């Protein structure tokens, strides 16, 4: 449908009258440049949203820090006091904290990306801008709100006697890997959610399943001895991301396939997500 009107427009274009057709899809390069030109919007607006997020609470943005602290406190109570369960892991609290926080951060980035187009329908109809700005902006927002979580995560690992070390240098890179994967999956999910709203209901269950499969609560290496079977876990991007974070913060061993997965998954997902998202760009305004 878009294609035929596109062709018609090009065919009848009269050079010299100073007019140009509206709504012509841009080349990828132009699209990315336009997205880059909006970088101030993409950072300032999520920052403002974060700033006013707790505006109606007594403690205000202290909650950004309190939330992860309370979460760790609950784990400490449940797994440290109530259930004596270390599942073959020495510093279970640090192991668990890193796993849960990294998992939730990925989940939040994907879920926010999935909703970004549908929940901004008004904006999509009102202003012309590269629609990828919506998932990208939501990913940046999630990245910004991860800062206090990261602080708590570092505090927990330090408290467990893991001194700062050279592996910390890799933190920006693995944070980038997490965000790139989250954005890529978010772009895919946003495009799918736009066609099938049903996905919004399915995503929580998909993530619940991945939560149990990705070794958030237990050490996969401790339960599975077979090397080939362990390598299969590299097919789960969340397992790769969690394991790399544990490597950086608490020195967990990382196998070759998981290293490869950490590099490859974010790249594949981001490229696929961008291409899939852009293929429906023109319809984001006209579908309700």
């Amino acid at each position, binding site marked *: 449908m878009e294609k035929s009107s596109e062709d018609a427009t090009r065919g009848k274009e009269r050079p010299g009258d100073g007019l140009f057709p509206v709504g012509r899809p841009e080349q990828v390069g132009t699209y990315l440049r336009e997205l880059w030109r909006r970088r101030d919007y993409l950072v300032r607006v999520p920052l403002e949203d974060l700033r006013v997020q707790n505006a109606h609470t007594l403690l205000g943005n202290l909650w950004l820090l309190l939330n992860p602290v309370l979460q760790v406190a609950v784990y400490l109570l449940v797994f440290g006091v109530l259930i004596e369960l270390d599942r073959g892991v020495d510093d279970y609290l640090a192991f668990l904290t890193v796993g849960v926080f990294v998992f939730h951060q990925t989940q939040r980035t994907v879920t926010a990306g999935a909703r970004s187009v549908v929940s901004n329908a008004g904006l999509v109809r009102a202003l012309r801008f590269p629609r990828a700005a919506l998932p990208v902006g939501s990913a940046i927002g999630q990245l910004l709100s991860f800062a206090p979580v990261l602080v708590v995560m570092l505090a927990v690992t330090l408290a467990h006697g893991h001194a700062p070390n050279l592996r910390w240098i890799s933190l920006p890179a693995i944070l980038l890997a997490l965000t790139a994967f989250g954005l890529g999956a978010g772009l895919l999910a946003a495009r799918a959610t736009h066609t099938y709203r049903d996905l919004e209901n399915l995503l929580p269950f998909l993530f619940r399943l991945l939560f149990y499969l990705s070794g958030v609560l237990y050490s996969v290496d401790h339960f599975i001895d077979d090397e080939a079977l362990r390598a299969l876990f590299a097919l789960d991007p969340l397992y790769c991301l969690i394991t790399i974070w544990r490597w950086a913060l608490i020195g967990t061993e990382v196998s070759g396939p998981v290293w490869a997965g950490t590099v490859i998954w974010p790249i594949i997902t981001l490229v696929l997500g961008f291409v899939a998202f852009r293929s429906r760009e023109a319809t984001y*305004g006209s579908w309700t």
Partner: protein
Amino acid sequence: MTGSTSSPPPTAIRCVGVEVQYTVRSHRLLLRDLLRGNSPKATIVNAIRGVDLEIQVGESVGVVGPNGSGKTTLLQAMTGVLPLASGQLMVRSLPTFLGVKAALRPRSTGRSNIRIGLLAQGLRWGEVEAMVNEVAAFTDLGSAIDRPMETYSSGMRARLHFAIATALTPDILLIDEALAVGDRAFRERSAHRLDEHRASAGTVLLVSHNLAEVRRSCERTIWLQEGRIMADGPTEEVLRDYESS
């Protein structure tokens, strides 16, 4: 731009056989199609059914018609946010729709919202900072500009929207029911801002149910009915027919 355009003013917007469709999904329909193994079909709403239109630079055109006649859709198609189902829509420069409302944040202050609104319209941070005080002054909201927008009355909100949306003066301005807002003083100032805009050879399309406002601001009016143009001509003639319909 060419020699032939020397006597009549050049064209700002040209629509030839423009059709715009909305896709509205019924989920029951979707499931039924999936079970039958068809690709899911959705209901197509023909919002604009073949509009031919030529608007000259510096013209101020009113768009009237009953609810659901496609007025807003036509304006949205002109900004390129909606794809055309067929026809062609050519413009001299990309029109701006007074639709910044959707970008604003209720919990943020009026001043923060000015920044957000200007950023959403594609400005860089430096440009925004240079303009924010001027826009804040135009809203005439006084100290309320630093209070959260959710504490504003609807009139105050409308003033903020109008001030942000018209802060950038595009060559072609599309307005959807934005003027009949605020108190008398603000209405006069916003009308004045549009007059200034037209004086500098700007083109304005004004969608409104307020016919007095259309009479005041527009010399030409288009009457839309069910996605087609019923009448297009001098405002007085078109509105006389429209009112007696």
